């Protein structure tokens, strides 16, 4: 028995020794990661130069970034293991490095660059994947939602989907990320010109959207927004009965006027498809009553009148509505189409960044 115990201790000790890397390898890692680490440290001290450095190909060439990326992937399984750590990679440093690359990614997008954002996104994702522990995981989950939303805002639907998919690999039951991914598929399906450039057809995109919305609701049944999107997508897929079941409770009982407006708008369209003219008119009018200054429901109602040959009503209604603007608020339909406006996205992003600063 004693012999067995001694043998086990000796084996464990030998394994620990084996994990120590040769000096040359440690030197290679140190040489590559130390300057990078210094960059992140300066970033945490709110120094603007690291961002400039990391985005400037002549100061920090892409192959160097690639090597750093490869090395991080290589050491990823043992990142918390001090025995093989070339630098002091505390989780807060990993978070900060991720935010540095996130900043670099969005900066490159603002400048309309095509390749660089992808490199920084890959770096940031690799870094976020290294995070462990409950608080770090919560940070990572928020990060995926915030950054995916901003990618969507930057009109990068395919990168946003890839990003959300990376996030779902880490957090498969994250209701908000599932909702976001579904929304992205729904967005792409609306645009023939985007669909044409993509491997999936519009119908397949809608199918994907529906799948994500259902998963999102399975993770959190109380999510009205997922319910709304699911109702809309079901209508577009021709499943009108279930679409109505999903949308009616939101239209009638939601505490959010914006969601009620959209639910009535979508229900109106379903009734139109079923030649339920009176019901369609009732729905559009209900939406207008909720948000009298917005435009989509007015356009929908005018078009319904036109369709029914009520030209005078169609004209009168539209003239009144078009003279309403320009509007200070944002039509809920536009928010549905474009996602939240930038000023609503920024606080989430700034909060993530603030958390990594010294």
């Amino acid at each position: 028995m004693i012999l067995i115990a001694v043998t086990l201790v000796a084996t464990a000790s030998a394994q620990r020794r084996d994990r120590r890397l040769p000096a040359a390898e440690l030197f290679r890692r140190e040489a590559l990661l130390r300057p990078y680490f210094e960059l992140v440290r300066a970033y945490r001290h709110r120094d603007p130069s690291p961002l400039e450095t990391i985005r400037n190909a002549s100061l920090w060439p892409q192959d160097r970034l690639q090597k750093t990326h490869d090395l991080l992937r290589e050491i990823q399984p043992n990142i918390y293991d001090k025995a093989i750590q070339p630098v002091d990679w505390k989780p807060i440093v990993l978070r900060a490095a991720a935010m540095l690359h996130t900043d670099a990614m969005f900066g490159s997008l603002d400048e309309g660059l095509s390749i660089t954002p992808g490199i920084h996104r890959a770096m940031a994702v690799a870094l976020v994947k290294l995070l462990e522990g409950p608080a770090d995981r919560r940070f990572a989950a928020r990060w995926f939602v915030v950054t995916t939303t901003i990618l969507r805002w930057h009109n990068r639907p395919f990168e946003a989907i890839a990003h959300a998919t990376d996030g779902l690999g880490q957090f498969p039951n994250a209701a908000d990320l599932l909702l976001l991914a579904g929304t992205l598929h729904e967005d792409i399906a609306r645009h023939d010109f985007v669909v044409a450039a993509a491997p999936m057809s519009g119908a397949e995109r809608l199918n994907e959207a529906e799948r994500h919305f259902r998963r999102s609701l399975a993770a959190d049944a109380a999510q009205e927004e997922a319910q709304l999107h699911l109702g809309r997508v079901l209508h577009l897929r021709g499943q009108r009965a279930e679409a109505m079941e999903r949308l009616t409770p939101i239209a009638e009982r939601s505490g959010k006027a914006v969601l009620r407006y959209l639910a009535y708008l979508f229900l109106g369209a379903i009734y139109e498809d079923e030649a339920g003219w009176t019901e369609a008119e009732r729905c559009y009018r209900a939406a207008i009553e909720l948000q009298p200054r917005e435009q989509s429901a007015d356009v929908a109602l005018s078009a319904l009148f036109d369709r029914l040959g009520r030209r005078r009503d169609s004209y009168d209604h539209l003239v009144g509505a078009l003279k309403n603007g320009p509007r200070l608020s944002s039509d809920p339909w536009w928010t549905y189409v474009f996602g939240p406006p930038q000023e609503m996205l920024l606080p989430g992003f700034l909060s993530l960044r603030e958390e990594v600063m010294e």
Partner: protein
Amino acid sequence: MKRRAVALLVAIGPAVAATPASTQQPTFTTRVDLVRVDVSVTRGRQPVGGLRAADFEVFDNGVRQQIESASIERLPLNVFFVIDVSQSVAGAKLDELREAAETFLDGLEGDDRAGLITFSHEVLLGSDLTPSRSSIAEALQQPVASGGTSLRDAIYAGLALRRADAHREVLLVCTDGLDTASWLTEAQLQAAASRGNSLLYVVGLAPPGPGQKRSGSESFLAKLADLSGGRVWHAESSDWLKRAFLEVLADIRTRYMLTYYPTNVPLDGWHALTVRVARQGLIVKAREGYYAEKP
């Protein structure tokens, strides 16, 4: 020819005399049995004049019709400018657009009226139809380019604000963008266009380059213009923009008006129209059909 005893409620061809006063209340339905078909005949881009009724063939739901008259009619115009003011036209492009529209306005005459609809993601009525060119010129100065593109909703607005009077209804749509924010679908807009009598002219600000595929919106706009009997121009440069607007005006001014009393076709429903000219090398554009309803 046997005249129909029951009048048709036809989207095409108002028979009410025009009263050109700008304050006139819009009228919306006109019961007629005479069908009027607005036709453009060109050789290349050049309008062709001098044609007579005998030169045309009109088929209503496949049945050849007896043409009562064919003439180039300088009807007064109701022109709605439907102008893209989304982010993508910010700067010089919008200025050029304003200039081109003003050039078009200079070409309007007597009883002609113009209106202005601008659109980004939001559709705005800059001015309803008015004989005052200066009001439109002033309204053209107001928009600031920004935001997305509700192209379909804006075109719908132009169609919905049409007047069923004796003016020729024209929508002049100028855009460089893809629709990103409209509520209405292509099918809804197409149906609305087929119910109305407006000619749709489209001036595309961003022509497809060599070998570049047309975007979905551009193909749709071309289809919509065809449906209405209008045309599409691609302004390849800023100089071209003014020229395109003037060519549109010339095309409108030299359109023929054919009239006939429909015979041997059902009273109501969709009437598919085919118009031909028995001469080689001519391009004939007329709306693809009209809806008629029993009173």
